[in-house]
């Protein structure tokens, strides 16, 4: 019964999305205030209704998973009665159908929030709700036609097939909702940008209305990418944190463009500068979200993310992609000549720095785009197969991003319109001092890979030092508020992540050996004494658990227990690494193959500064949160301009 309720709810939601689209777009063209008001109200009510029905459908599927209702195909293929409750719930989005339903649920949440938001004026809100309604309808159609999550199975199997064990992990339970909150949040920004073009209100109104949504999306993308990277680090069993895998790149591209967008919006919102460019970025950011969805969902890429390969789905998303991007770009090309651009500023000003930020971020995003799609296109067009791996990004992405990082500290120090370059250099002297100190320390202690390490540490010192200066300057000025910490935190977070990346890549130690009980393995300053492997039984898996004593200077300081787990229901085995961290460095141990006679392969890594990678991501997200907080204060809402 729940399956049918879910399906019916989806159909009703589709009808409401179409009403929302029609009413919203009609309102944007209404002649009288009364007609505009009426259609906007209809669009708003439809948005609330859409949310209610999608929530009902999602609830129905979740109920199916929690109660192990194997008469629903999606549940039978992806769940199992013995799975712990948390993975029954996360199993809802651990498959293609359910994850598309989650996508639409997040869209419905944003749609409802847009209906509640008071900023932007009636006509703009109406048009934005209309565009969001169109997107909602397209995605619900996609679900109903190609990815029905409620398809019945007859006869109903006695037991489910289980969930990919790699996905049975707390980090991965959180990663997709977080990433979708980011991807789909950009749809709201896209809707406001399209609405601005439709209504020709391309000034700062739309930017102010869209700003909270793009901040939420950016925070969620930052956390989603951080969580994904952390998961890859501890699950894949060899201590890497970023692989330039196409699926990771699919999330990185919208993040880079969204980062450019939240910076250029600062200018648009304040002085109405860079109007067309900000609109174009808003369109590009969501377009890249769609490209990412296409790459991940169509099965073009084989990975842990592509649950099932079905060309029909790929074609549908490709058409949707073409219509959304093509339509938005056509609208832009039509309206852009009419957009007034008349700002004036000196070369040494915050405006220039924001533009430079955008140049480098756009080039960085273009690099990731080329590196991800080029091999696919080349293969499709010529049949030549190439790999684009880390060495490519090291010589393209890295220099572009390093140039950007060098400029970051100047942005907050230069005033709008006319800044003082010499004065800002003087203010930033402590940052330069910290950078120099960091480099000297690296050389003085003769750290391995000293030149690269000194460069990375100097750059991190420059960023963190400049953030301290930023904090001091903001503290001194009277207008101190939570949002003042946005750039302080976000830019310092970049420095912290950079430290982590440099430490882990340049100074990691690695050891791999076959050990018999009693033998030991040396990694960095640690000696790992292997005590053998014992079997253990988990809720839905069997594990071989190794016990290793961690010795340092002949003294035992800890015991760690990496495992190899086999999941009989899914017929798969995974390694469960054991990581001992002190917040500065990780000792990382994974259990390899059984070599017979009690001998096992053991792989150990010492990763200096690895935790900083994820600390930095969290600090950046806090920076976004500070900016959002400042915008959601009650008086900020009241200051909303009337149409």
């Amino acid at each position, binding site marked *: 019964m729940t399956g049918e309720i879910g399906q019916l709810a989806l159909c009703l939601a589709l009808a409401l999305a179409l009403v929302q689209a029609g009413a919203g777009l009609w309102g944007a063209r209404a002649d009288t205030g009364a007609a505009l008001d009426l259609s906007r109200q209809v669009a708003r009510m439809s948005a609330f209704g859409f949310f209610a029905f999608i929530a009902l459908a999602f609830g129905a599927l979740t109920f199916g998973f929690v109660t192990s209702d194997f008469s629903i195909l999606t549940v039978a293929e992806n769940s199992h009665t013995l799975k712990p409750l948390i993975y029954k719930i996360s199993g809802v989005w651990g498959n293609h159908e359910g994850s598309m339903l989650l996508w639409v649920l997040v869209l419905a949440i944003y749609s409802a929030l847009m209906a509640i938001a008071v900023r932007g004026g009636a006509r703009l809100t109406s048009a934005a709700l209309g565009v969001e309604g169109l997107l909602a309808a397209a995605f619900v159609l996609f679900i109903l036609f190609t990815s029905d999550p409620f398809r019945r199975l007859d006869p109903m199997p006695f037991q489910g097939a289980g969930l990919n064990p790699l996905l049975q992990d707390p980090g991965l339970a959180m990663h997709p909702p977080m990433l979708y909150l980011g991807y789909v949040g950009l749809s709201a920004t896209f809707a406001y940008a399209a609405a601005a073009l439709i209504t020709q209100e391309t000034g700062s109104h739309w930017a102010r209305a869209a700003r909270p949504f793009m901040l939420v999306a950016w925070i969620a993308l930052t956390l989603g990418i951080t969580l994904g990277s952390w998961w890859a680090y501890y699950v894949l069993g060899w201590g890497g944190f970023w692989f330039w895998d196409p699926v990771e790149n699919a999330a990185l591209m919208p993040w880079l463009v969204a980062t450019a967008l939240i910076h250029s919006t600062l200018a648009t919102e304040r002085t109405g500068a860079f109007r067309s460019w900000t609109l174009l970025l808003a369109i590009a950011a969501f377009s890249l979200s769609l490209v990412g969805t296409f790459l991940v969902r169509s099965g073009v890429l084989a*990975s842990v993310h592509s649950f099932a390969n079905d060309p029909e789905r790929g074609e549908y998303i490709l058409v949707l992609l073409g219509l959304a991007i093509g339509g938005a770009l056509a609208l832009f090309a039509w309206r852009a000549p009419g957009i007034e651009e008349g700002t*004036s*500023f000196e070369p040494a000003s915050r405006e220039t720095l924001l533009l430079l930020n955008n140049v480098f971020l756009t080039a960085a995003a273009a690099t990731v785009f080329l590196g991800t799609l080029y091999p696919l296109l080349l293969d499709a067009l010529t049949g030549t197969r190439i790999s684009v791996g880390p060495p490519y990004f090291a010589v393209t992405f890295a220099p572009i991003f390093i140039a950007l990082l060098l400029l970051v500290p100047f942005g907050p120090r230069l005033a709008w319109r006319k800044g003082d370059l010499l004065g800002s250099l003087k203010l930033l002297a402590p940052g330069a001092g910290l950078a120099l100190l960091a480099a000297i320390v690296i050389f003085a202690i003769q750290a*391995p890979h000293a030149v690269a390490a000194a460069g990375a540490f100097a750059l991190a010192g420059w960023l963190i030092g400049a953030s301290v200066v930023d904090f001091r300057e903001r503290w001194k000025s009277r207008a101190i508020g939570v949002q003042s910490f946005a750039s302080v935190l976000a830019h310092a977070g970049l420095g912290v992540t950079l430290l982590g990346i440099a430490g882990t890549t340049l100074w990691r130690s690695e*050891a791999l050996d*076959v050990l018999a009980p009693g033998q030991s393995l040396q990694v960095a300053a640690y000696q790992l004494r292997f005590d053998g492997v014992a079997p253990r039984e988990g809720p839905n898996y069997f594990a071989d658990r190794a016990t290793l004593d961690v010795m340092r200077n002949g003294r035992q300081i800890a015991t760690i227990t990496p495992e190899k787990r086999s999941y009989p229901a899914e017929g798969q085995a995974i390694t469960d690494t054991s990581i001992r961290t002190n917040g500065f460095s990780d000792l990382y141990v994974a259990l390899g193959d059984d070599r017979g006679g009690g001998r096992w392969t053991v792989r150990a890594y010492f990763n*200096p500064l690895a935790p900083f990678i994820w600390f930095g991501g969290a600090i950046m997200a806090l920076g976004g949160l500070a900016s959002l907080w400042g915008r959601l204060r009650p008086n900020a809402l009241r200051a909303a301009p009337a149409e």
Partner: protein
Amino acid sequence: MMRPAILAAFLVLFAQASLAQTRPDALADPKLEARAVELQKELRCLVCQGQSLDTSDAPLAADLRHFIRVRIAHGETDDQIKQELVARYGDVILMEPPLDPQTYLLWFGPFLVLILCGSVVAVVVARARNRSRHQN
């Protein structure tokens, strides 16, 4: 500024960082073994997604790691070994795509975008400055 306690923590950290690596199938000469490890990082595992030969657990990757060590022991250069593998498996085995007319766009595209955007920004800034000077 960096406090002494943090500085001390960093010193401890660096002191631990050595670059030792042991493997059951390692070559006896550490220099040759280092070359083998470097080489297997530049080559892609063909059966698993996105991993290098260095980190892959796949049997094919283990065979290729062994192949690399045999060839190095025979005195072949890194380039010779790579060429042999490319002849057998194609360019797809190289982590770094080759530079040829088919990949010019891939290699130069990022810098093209950078130059293009940079030029546009230069024009925009010049115009904004003219307006700014005009107003004053």
